[in-house]
């Protein structure tokens, strides 16, 4: 523990200052915090999902599962920090299409982008917030990645302040990101491309959650438990009949 702290400090002098503060940096180094949230729709996006993360020191593992967003269009997804660590009221009046909530409208709630949940080993910092080429581009997807975050981000996550936001809403139902209004984050993109679609405030879990439903699940739902027996029997019948036929032919020929 001492060693890792020392190494981390050596590797990144900036951390030294933080390490000096006893509680925070000290504690998160060895501690894994498990975070979860369901993702609820904003802007009537029609989507849903969940996010599950484990943070140990500066290492973040996160899995995001999303359903029902606009298909074939990139969905920028981030962990926001620095706001009230919550999602805005979905009915809040925003500055977007017919009162839609735009990303900056709710910045007091979820804060700024601090982690970009990109794929393809792309940058995960806020600098990649609109790296559209490396975000999921399906309406339904599962995203999973492990990466490192800066110390202050790690601390924010450990404190349960992170908010997962998935962006991209087709307000007018045209099937793509378009419309008059340009994005409040990048004026070369339609606002639809960056308006928030799903939001969930990461909450500390009450247990170390078992992995997926796979082993817990083994869902032995009975039903065809005799499949093997029946198949084996069928195989025997087929083999026997085949051998019989072959043998008869052989005898006939000889």
């Amino acid at each position, binding site marked *: 523990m001492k060693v890792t702290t020392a190494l981390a400090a050596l590797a990144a002098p900036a951390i030294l200052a933080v390490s000096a503060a006893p509680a925070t940096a000290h504690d998160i180094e060895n501690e894994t915090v498990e975070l979860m949230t369901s993702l609820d729709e904003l802007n009537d996006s029609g989507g849903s999902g969940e996010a599950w993360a484990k943070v140990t020191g500066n290492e973040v593992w996160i899995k995001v599962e999303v359903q029902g967003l606009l298909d074939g269009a990139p969905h920028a997804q981030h962990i926001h920090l620095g706001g009230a660590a919550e999602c805005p009221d979905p009915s809040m009046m925003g500055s977007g299409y017919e009162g839609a909530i735009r990303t900056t409208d709710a910045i007091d709630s979820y804060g700024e982008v601090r982690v970009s949940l990109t794929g393809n080993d792309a940058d995960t910092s806020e600098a990649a917030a609109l790296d559209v080429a490396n975000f999921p581009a399906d309406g339904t997807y599962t995203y999973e990645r492990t990466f490192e975050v800066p110390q202050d981000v790690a601390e924010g996550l450990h404190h349960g302040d992170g908010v997962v936001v998935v962006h991209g809403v087709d307000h007018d139902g045209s099937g793509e990101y378009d419309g008059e209004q340009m994005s409040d984050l990048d004026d070369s993109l339609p606002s639809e491309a960056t308006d928030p679609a799903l939001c969930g405030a990461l909450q500390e879990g009450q*247990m170390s959650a078992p992995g*997926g439903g796979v082993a817990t699940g083994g869902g032995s739902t*009975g039903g*065809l*438990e005799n499949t*093997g027996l029946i198949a*084996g029997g069928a195989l025997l019948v087929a083999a*026997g009949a085949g051998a019989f036929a072959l043998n008869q032919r052989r*005898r006939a020929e000889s």
Partner: protein
Amino acid sequence: MSTDQPGQGRRGVLLTALAVLAVLVGVVVIAVGVATQRPDPPSPPAATSAAEPTEATGGPEDEQPDEAGSDDPADDGQSATSAPGSSAQDEGQDGQETEQPAEPEVAALDPSEPVEVRIPSIDVVSPLHPLGLAEDGTLEVPSGDRYDEAAWYDGSPTPGEVGPTVIEGHVTGAGGVESVFFDLGALRAGDTAEVEREDGRTVTFEVYRVDQFAKDAFPTVDVYGPTDSPELRLITCGGEFDEAEQSHEDNTVVYARMVEG
């Protein structure tokens, strides 16, 4: 093909006999397989998940008067089963925060490990043993002598603590014999499950949602995610089934909420 070997005839007869035998055995095996085929365990109807925890039938509102009142010797949940001893009842009522009629939730309890689960509507009574996570992060499942007993995930809250208490059990065993949670999918909103704790208290949970999930669509956060009050998750878990068993792909998960403890 017409090599003129001596003994060809006799070997032919033998082979024919073997072939016929194989067919006969095969037919018998199929017959046994079909005859002993077991019925599917029950499934929840397609959409049972609508009920909100607070709106489940006979919810906390119904129970609250009992709870807030003085030492009620027995409530429906208890008397319906053979609760061992009445000490659970006595202790169950002297909790520190029972006098909160305005609060729609029951007060959470201090930790105490679960020892038995009872689900009257499907005639389940099972002792509980603790299980943890396997190396790969998945939940261990009951095995050996305790294969047919339900188990408590010891990383989850104890029953009555805030959070989801996780209890798992097999649907079937080797050969498709019914195991402890075979009928889990038959539970419906409003049914109850009782969990007895080491300290003698019994916590009653009321079902508000029953779902079936494909293993690859398991809603981790719904099932294991944090909750504001004491809840219970009853989960079917896999046995040692052949990879070839293509039909065993669903998990039944029952969501329940503490109504009495």
